[in-house]
């Protein structure tokens, strides 16, 4: 994986709660066995109608073209454990997902694929949803810069390390598994 860099981008506001992985990548695409190219199927049923982009869906709004940050509501990524959901978000170009809460398996899957899921308070999320300007995500300093105001976020040290160094999780854990538990313990917040 590529080391996770600072990201500055407009954020795409997906104003829905409980977005499950079947909305992220509908089941008909699960059969595809390659790991790449899932971006075209991202939010497929919301994004397209009979193959044509739906004007009323936020991803089709030109204002959010090239956005690298997705804003989502509570319990994002619930439902099926399909990792295709993360593969699709990544392939589409999202590198950061910000929500008040994530489903557990989805949250884990993000780190395996170089995506940073950030959990924030209701109040912060509201602020992010209402801004029109770009948001800067600084993982090193665990901060979001929104309209020149920094907002700190929490992330487990082990997860931060693998993203910042671009370590492949499998390779990393195969090499260092004994040390991770110690590292995690000594950095408990």
């Amino acid at each position: 994986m590529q080391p996770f860099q600072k990201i500055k981008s407009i954020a795409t506001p997906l104003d829905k709660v409980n977005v499950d992985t079947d909305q992220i990548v509908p089941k008909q695409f699960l059969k595809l066995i390659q790991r790449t190219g899932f971006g075209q199927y991202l939010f497929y049923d919301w994004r397209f109608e009979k193959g044509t982009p739906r004007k009323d869906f936020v991803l089709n709004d030109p204002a959010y073209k090239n956005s690298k940050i997705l804003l989502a509501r509570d319990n994002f990524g619930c439902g099926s454990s399909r990792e295709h959901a993360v593969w699709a978000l990544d392939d589409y170009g999202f590198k950061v997902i910000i929500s008040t809460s994530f489903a557990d398996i989805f949250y884990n899957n993000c780190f395996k694929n170089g995506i940073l899921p950030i959990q924030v308070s209701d109040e912060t999320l509201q602020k992010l949803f209402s801004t029109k300007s770009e948001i800067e995500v600084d993982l090193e300093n665990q901060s979001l810069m929104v309209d020149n105001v920094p907002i700190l976020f929490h992330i487990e040290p082990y997860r931060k390390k693998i993203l910042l160094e671009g370590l492949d999780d499998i390779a990393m854990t195969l090499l260092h598994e004994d040390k991770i538990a110690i590292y995690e313990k000594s950095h408990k917040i």
Partner: protein
Amino acid sequence: MNITEKILARASGKTQVSPGDVVFVNVDKVMVHDVSGPGVLAVFEKLRKKGMVIDKVWDPERVWVAEDHFVPAADKISAQNVVLLTNFTKQFGIKRHFKYGMGQYGICHTLSHEEAMVLPGEVYVGGDSHTNTTGALGAFAAGLGHTDVAYVLLNGKIWFKVPETLFFKINGKLPDHVMAKDLILKIIGDIGTDGAAYKTMQFGGTGISEMSVESRLTLTNMTTEAGAKSGIVEPDLKLREYLAARGVTKYDEVHGDTDAQYEKIYEYEGSEMEPIVAKPFSPENTAVARDLSSVELDKAYIGSCTGAKLEDLQAVAKILKGRTVKIRTEILPAAMSIFRKAMDTGLLKIFMDAGVVVGPPTCGACCGAHMGVLAKDEICISTTNRNFPGRMGHVESQTYLASPLVAAASAVTGKITDPRDLK
């Protein structure tokens, strides 16, 4: 320590663990199916491209494989995926591959208990979110993504953060017209779909001791719908009998200490429970079944790891005996062993006399993949576990989640029906 903490402590070689600790645990069993298997193989491929040599899995005896989501092969690609799985099990010497059309096969979570693939006290992971189901056998059972499953296949280990445990104490037996499904829907309605996020939901109390193992499996199955990492029930005599009936008597049970700690204890009075239905489009969107009696239906679906165990089919048969269905109704036993028992005990005749289609075990329509999906605007009552938009077919179809009793009663009337109100 409670049972979950003790299992994780034992599996990580520690004497004590607490919620929040990160532990590396030795995995006892790992499962892949026809969706996660090809996903895992894609991860293997990625690693191979980076130069990693992958020519064996850590222990082929501890790996088992199910074909369930897209069998009978929904199309050419799913047929190809089953070939991939077959090549995978051959290449790596994995013997426990339950193949469609060759004796016992079925939905992975159902096989986990029907075939006693997982035993009390074990750590079990699978490439499917409803892996939690198997926790009713007194094991730690959790779903993983494809990369994590690939890691376990290579390494036999995985790291977990020890979860907090929410304890659900059920006092007293459920009434005859109420099933475990009603109870778990009630609980999810109360705590919400992220009410147990990264926590274990443990079920206990006299209501659970009175409950069959199959009913307990319905509870743990749907802990996923409350966001739980795992669901669990402590082993008891009923579980030992259940496993003995499957030829398994040797295992190392784990029980919580008398001073076990829980983050929170919820109490429910079993006798006060009533039939509950989850309305579209979330399992937390619950209502009392009787309050929905005006909802007209197009279809009833009795299937899945949640609602097509033998006991579920027996409940359906109790309702359908001597009656006919008013709406399209499908019954898909969750494994061939259950299908056979349904045949041997005369349930299939009752179903067919009622006008129902009986089909082969598959996840098929539960996840909207194939084998009877819903059209636009169609409304289904289902014994399954999820009713997100488009879950069972068209994104504008609707699914109401219910117990097998409620689903069967509704099949007879064509409207959502409390089994007590059936004439």
